[in-house]
């Protein structure tokens, strides 16, 4: 394989892996902060125990997020040096601001929070976890400012052979950012919500100890997961409507829509022939795509062939069609996972409303394993948004093939790709084993007899 392909694989693997941990950090930091606030306000010891219980799981997750985040900051220069030269004037700023405004805050106050129990005034200790939560979510805002530019460049001019920033506020006011950031924010909430829900259900199902505390935890998780999921779906809908306007090719690929239609039909299931750009087999609902795009059953949605023609006129000869099958399926898996999550969260909410925490084995298993769905949705969502932008790294400005480092040999990239993958694989096994240990141990910190594989054997 050539250096470009290897570098793309490395970026995909390290970024997807990094983003296993990020949404949990975003959502769980706020959840822990809320629990501690309740404890602070009411003095209810159960909430203190819950704060510590979820706080510990938060830290196990956070460690890997931080460790793998360092790679993220370095690998633009390491593997994508031409991109860094071309884009540094714009892309470097949000990254530096992210470190200055968010990383310092997050890491310093996390240290204060971990070590500050019973040593600091309660109010200051509570403030520390809120600053961690704010810092984490601010970091998402800044890195998405950078990513939004890649989807929809604004506030720039091409000068001196590179993209230069002309308006910082335009970068921050990028419409794409304000649909993408909420989407990621609520995805974090949903991911953390289902984690809380499923582990609480585990304890309620086994009814060992602290049933009342885990009922509170379950209630919290149900509300949190539901709010996160319904919002991520609503924002996602807005985001798709925005995408129709600014990245028509991405939308066309998501829907495997080869030719423009008005009103446009939506695909329920398509097997296509990518090289011929036509359907082999398709079930389509008439006019539904127009409705999703414009909230009415009319309006043209552009197809792949037509956008390709337009972009050839705009950018010169070339193939501007992303891998359609991957775009189509990642988009559908994300949306499908989102709706399954919604149903489960409604079920959990209903049980909360009824104060009925007696779960059948089936209900418990469903709730428990729903924990994995947000991870699937998060991963496919990012794969979709980055792959369906190809061949561009920055839409309309620089192509992926022109972004890669020209001085790093394929052998070097192969070495780093293998090294990172092996270490990441080992670390996730270690992380899951620790997570299981602490998730299945009692809330008082006392470990139960059968820590190892209890979750799997029960579920």
């Amino acid at each position, binding site marked *: 394989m050539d250096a470009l392909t290897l570098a793309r694989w490395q970026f995909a693997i390290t970024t997807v892996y990094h983003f296993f941990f990020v949404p949990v950090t975003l959502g769980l930091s706020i959840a822990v902060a809320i629990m501690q606030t309740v404890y602070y306000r009411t003095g209810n010891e159960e909430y203190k125990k819950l704060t510590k219980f979820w706080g510990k799981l938060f830290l196990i997750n956070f460690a890997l997020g931080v460790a793998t985040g360092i790679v993220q900051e370095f690998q*633009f220069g390491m593997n994508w040096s031409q991109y860094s030269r071309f884009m540094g004037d714009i892309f470097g700023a949000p990254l530096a*601001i992210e470190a*200055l*405004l968010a990383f310092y805050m997050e890491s310093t*106050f996390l240290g204060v929070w971990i070590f500050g129990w019973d040593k600091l005034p309660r109010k200051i200790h509570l403030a520390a976890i809120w600053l961690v939560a704010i810092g984490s979510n601010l970091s998402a805002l800044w890195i998405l400012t950078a990513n939004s530019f890649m989807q929809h460049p604004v506030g720039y001019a091409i000068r001196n052979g590179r993209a230069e920033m002309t308006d910082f506020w335009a970068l921050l006011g990028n419409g794409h950012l304000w649909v993408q950031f909420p989407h990621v924010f609520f995805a974090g909430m949903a991911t953390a919500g289902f984690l809380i829900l499923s582990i609480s259900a585990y304890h309620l199902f086994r009814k060992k100890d602290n049933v009342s505390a885990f009922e509170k935890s379950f209630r919290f998780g149900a509300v949190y997961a539901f709010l996160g999921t319904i919002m991520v779906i609503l924002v996602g809908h807005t985001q798709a409507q925005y995408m129709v306007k600014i990245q028509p090719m991405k939308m066309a690929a998501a829907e495997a829509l080869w030719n423009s239609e008005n009103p446009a039909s939506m695909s329920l299931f398509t097997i296509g022939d990518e090289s011929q750009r036509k359907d082999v087999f398709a079930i389509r609902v008439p006019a539904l795509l127009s409705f999703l795009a414009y909230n009415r059953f009319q309006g043209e949605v552009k197809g792949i062939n037509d956008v390709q023609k337009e972009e050839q006129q705009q950018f010169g000869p070339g193939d501007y069609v992303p891998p359609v099958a991957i775009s189509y399926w990642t988009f559908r898996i994300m949306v499908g996972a989102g709706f399954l999550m919604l149903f489960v969260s409604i079920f959990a909410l209903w049980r909360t409303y009824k104060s009925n925490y007696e779960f059948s084995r089936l209900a418990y298993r469903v709730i428990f394993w729903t924990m994995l769905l947000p991870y699937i949705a998060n991963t496919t969502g990012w794969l979709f948004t980055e792959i369906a932008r190809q061949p561009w790294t920055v839409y309309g400005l620089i192509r992926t093939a022109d972004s890669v480092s020209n001085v790093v040999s394929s052998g070097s990239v192969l*070495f780093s790709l293998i090294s990172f993958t092996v270490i990441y694989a080992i670390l996730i096994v270690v992380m899951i084993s620790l997570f299981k240990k602490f998730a299945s141990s009692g809330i008082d910190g006392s470990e139960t007899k059968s820590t190892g594989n209890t979750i799997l054997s029960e579920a």
Partner: protein
Amino acid sequence: MDLNTVWFILIAVLFIGFFFLEGFDYGVGILLPFLGKDDDSRRAIINSIGTFWDGNEVWLLTAGGAIFAAFPNWYATMFSGFYLALVIMLIALILRAVAFEYRSKKDSKSWRNRWDWAIFFGSFVPALLWGVAMANLIRGVPIDSSMNYVGTFFTLLNPYALVGGLASLSIFMLHGAIFLSLKLTNGLLESARSAAKKLWLPSTVILFAFVAYTYAATDILNKIGVNPGPIPILAGIAILSVRYLLNIRKDGWAFVMTGITIAFSTITIFMGLYPRVMVSSSNPLWSLTIYNASSSPYTLKVMSIVALIFVPIVLAYQAWSYWVFRKRIAAKSDLEY
């Protein structure tokens, strides 16, 4: 002073902060298996930096981000050019970060032992490589006319750079040992102080050897002259005083002195570099400078405003966190890590 120079100085400040703070973290990590004879003492050692290491590491992330934002060509050339060295350093940093958090979360002896060695490896490698990297920046590496690094991994491992690596490694170990003597109690305090005393002579010798070698291997003589001015001289005097201060048990002052040595040595390197950021050994005209590597004036202006507002805030709350957790850590105290 133009904004390019301001950002050159700011990045130097970030590296000073990073080497000063993370320097003792690395030192503590390297000394861990040697000073910590049993689990209790190892936990005390790790917890002495437990609150701080993550915040300290952000200085590196900020320096990286600042280089990217202010001097994208520097970021692109250095990070792609030093590729394999950075991969090794990243692996070390990943293992180290996870090790701090995971080490004491299981009771198993082999589990903890493995993570302790991860902390050692994860601290040793970057402590060495940062000296190698700094030495190479000032000595010069092969860079062609279009700012591309054209050497190999082994080009970076030249004798001068390796001496630079040993210098940073040994001074960080000394700095870490003195930090531990400030944070620990009783027997551990004594062994940390005696480690510092033992480390003092080799660190001092290596540092002065590196200084002498720098005059021979780089163009710093043209830059700062035979009389280098107060900063490099104070860096040397500071480390010389450390042994005496340790003898009279003024550990706090000894720590200030190793800090001064680290800070002023870093300043000296940046003075030697200025206005270049990477020296080209192929042709002086192909060196990267604060002008040909920089962002646009507009971006520099935006970033200057951001830095002006937020750097003081960051400094204030990080200093506050050190003040809050200034107490010594005993082997039997209530430990988090």
